[in-house]
């Protein structure tokens, strides 16, 4: 590029992908998508928690292991973890301004979300398969 005085790239093309999140509207859209999914899933989740709350170990395992309940929990984990990761990234980008700390915080946020998601998914599957 250096030998040319003018670039044929449009101004929009030059800055695309260079926002604070290094991406465009995908996060906004994914936040909406998971938010819509979260509405029925969170309502189902609250009902599940309330109905399992007072039970002892055996009963709670039986309840969580039921296919419909396990599937609803897995869907809420998936949607919730993606949603909370992007949501927290927005908060980090708003308040953490030094580039280094921001990169570390955004990375830690992703690690947290993935770890939470993996642990919860593993637990539900183990319970559901009765292992």
């Amino acid at each position, binding site marked *: 590029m250096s030998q040319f005085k003018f670039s044929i790239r449009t101004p929009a093309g030059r800055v695309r992908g260079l926002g604070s999140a290094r991406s465009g509207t995908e996060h906004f859209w994914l936040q909406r998508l998971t938010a819509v999914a979260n509405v029925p899933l969170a309502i189902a989740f609250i009902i599940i928690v309330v109905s399992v709350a007072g039970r002892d170990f055996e009963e*709670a395992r039986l309840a969580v292991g039921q296919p419909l309940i396990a599937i609803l929990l897995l869907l809420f984990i998936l949607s919730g973890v993606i949603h909370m990761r992007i949501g927290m990234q927005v908060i980090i980008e708003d308040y953490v301004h030094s580039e280094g700390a921001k990169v570390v915080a955004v990375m830690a946020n992703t690690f947290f979300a993935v770890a939470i998601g993996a*642990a*919860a998914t593993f637990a539900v599957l183990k319970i559901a398969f009765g292992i």
Partner: protein
Amino acid sequence: MAEAKAPTSQPAHSRPLSPHLQIYRLTWTMVMSGMHRATGGALYIGTLLLVIWLVALATGPRAFDRVQWFMGSWLGYLILFGYTWALLHHMMGGLRHFMWDFGKGFEPKERLMLAKGSLVASAALTLLVWVVGLSLS
């Protein structure tokens, strides 16, 4: 923003820049915006609880009993109650966002009604969940 030039001469009418401490007024919509962020952050931490509970249930009776012991204490109940309220409040905030995404609900009266309405609705729903939940268990 970096290219924006500072005005070289004083404008004819110097307008207050926001936020301006002497005329700062907290409004319902501002509070609710902050609450959406605060409840989102609280849910982020609260998700740990869900995972601890699930992993304990997957691990075995002893681990599960230890977690249940905490959840059954007054502090455990307080956290669970707060978690349900945060989730329902955040959900009502999310529903308001969906409405705004379609360009609806921006009139001053509507904004105020939505803000107050979602506060009342989330409190009512939380109480309903707990009254039903506690009477079942």
